[in-house]
């Protein structure tokens, strides 16, 4: 986990620095808390960096090299992309169709190959949720092109 810790510590220092620099243009009272929290984050980043580098020799003997699984990354990225596409589509296509597609594609991307069960679940859940939230909870979903 050494590389992960190095990335995390560096990111903490960079984020802290960005917040402090951005706070410079604010009034002192407004900038107090952001500066305090960012300084705290930077200090922790430095501590993590130092401890990670100090452990270098000790760990390098036993550390396992994590294999980078491309398939895993692609699948996770695809799920996030589907969710993002849903966010973009809901205003144009309404609620039911994007929700049906969201369930169906996520289940498919997760390697579930029983298409009949997937189709039935996607259809049942999207229509069921639409009816429950519209008629019981009185939620107004975007209308979109269809319904």
């Amino acid at each position: 986990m050494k590389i992960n810790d190095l990335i995390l510590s560096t990111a903490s220092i960079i984020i802290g620095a960005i917040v402090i620099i951005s706070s410079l243009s604010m009034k002192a009272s407004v900038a107090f808390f952001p500066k305090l929290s960012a300084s705290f984050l930077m200090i922790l980043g430095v501590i993590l960096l130092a401890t990670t580098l100090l452990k270098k020799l000790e760990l390098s003997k036993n550390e396992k090299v994590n294999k980078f699984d491309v398939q895993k990354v692609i699948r996770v990225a695809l799920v996030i992309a589907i969710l993002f596409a849903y966010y973009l589509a809901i205003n144009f296509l309404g609620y039911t169709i994007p929700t049906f597609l969201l369930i169906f594609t996520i289940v498919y991307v997760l390697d579930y190959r029983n298409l009949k069960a997937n189709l039935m679940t996607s259809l049942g859940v999207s229509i069921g949720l639409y009816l429950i939230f519209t008629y019981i909870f009185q939620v107004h979903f975007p209308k979109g092109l269809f319904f």
Partner: protein
Amino acid sequence: MSSILMGLQAIMNPQTLLFILAGVLIGFIIGALPGLTGNMAIALMVPVTFTMEPVAALAFLGAIYTSSIFGGSVSAILLGIPGTVSSMATTLDGYPMALKGKAGQALGIATLSSVFGGLFSSFVLMFFAPMLAEQALRFGPSEYFAVAVLGLSCIANIGGGSMTKGLISGALGLLLAIIGMDPQTGFPRFTFGSVNLLEGIELVPALIGLFGIVAILKTAEKSNEPDRSVPIPDVGSVWIGWKMCLRLIPTWLRGSVIGTIIGIIPGTGTNIATFLSYDMEKKFSKNGPKFGEGEPEGIAAPESANNGVTGGSLVPLLALGVPGNATSALFLGAIMIHGLRVGPVLFSDQPEIVNGLFISLFISNLLMAPIGLFILRYIKSILSIPDKLLSGVVAAFCVTGVYALNSNTFDLLILIVFGFLGYVFYKFKVPTAPLIVAMVLGSMAESNLRQALVASRGSYSFLYTQPITLFIVLASLASFLFPVINNIIKTKAMFKSAAAEATSEMAVEDDD
């Protein structure tokens, strides 16, 4: 007595009782499914409570909370996989007992232990929270600032694993709490020109992202791994007999007391309570050496402790407005969407809501036994639902619930961003609980500090001139420094032993 009657009056209507029943069912099933947690169940159901009466909403979520922790024991016993983190210790004796062909007995012990622990902690919550809230009525901004700092000081403990990473998570939570308008001047901070961020980051979409979306991404990650499903043993009779009940009463009492006390302390959690209770029982019990081989006390201790945490963890939230863990932060989100304020004001302004919640927790715990025992008949079918198919359903619940909160698609973006953030945290082994607690307490600390500073004309003297503030600040310092010092001592010891090892190795080489 009048408060009990008030609570009963608020709860005793068919609709609310039906919501409690539904909550127990939902919580139990979600808790039993490995990979789906109680927190995720609460997060997904918070938007559903939007249109309910506040009493019914909190009763529904309380029922999910208590029964999901109990539900976690089912997969721990039958599959050897804890359904929730709180059931990890139950696996140690529950699974071996199931392998011996006593799955029904193990589940029966878990059921009754959970009910005992839950009832005990509800009782403590009912009497302790109002007392604490009464004291907190005297609190002003300086005391509330100190209380928020006390809550924040505990984030070093919440993480589990690396303390530095837990603190980094907390610091990021503080930065996220800053987003939005400054509490006094209204100056927009880090809103990136977005009107949607002026009020800050919506807590509930963020929490649903951190619990719901992360669960889907975790399933996505392991979906190409070979199926390691284990055969589910037959459950059989779950009644353990009166003799066993009498034998387990001392264990239940010890477990419930430990769970409730640990639950009250902000920053602790069910996993600490269960392992502490298990460890203590191992020392107390005459069958201690047999622990790990399927001892009844090895199941009863952690199960009474984890349900003991439920009521305890709500004490600081309800009495002081301070969420001590992720679950109470979810409750805070649910209370906030009803436009209510937590803390002593809730006790004085809306006593029927608080007392209703207390009574509903009693009812939920009592319902857990018959409902749990009934569902256990169908547990094989429930546990065989493919998690990949469930992930699609969870995704639909996440997006629908989040949109339903404000009918604003921007909340969906928050959901996705926090889901991704939670996944990054998971990959980097950074705990999310400190982030959540800091997000809530950060703004509380800042606004109260600013108010206290205005009252004291810019002087920080209120930190040591006001006795309650001083006491809480000192307690915060102790709470923060104790794990830090403990960590330093441990690290020093580690380096010392490494150095000693290296010296002895060198000596051996010299001898050679």
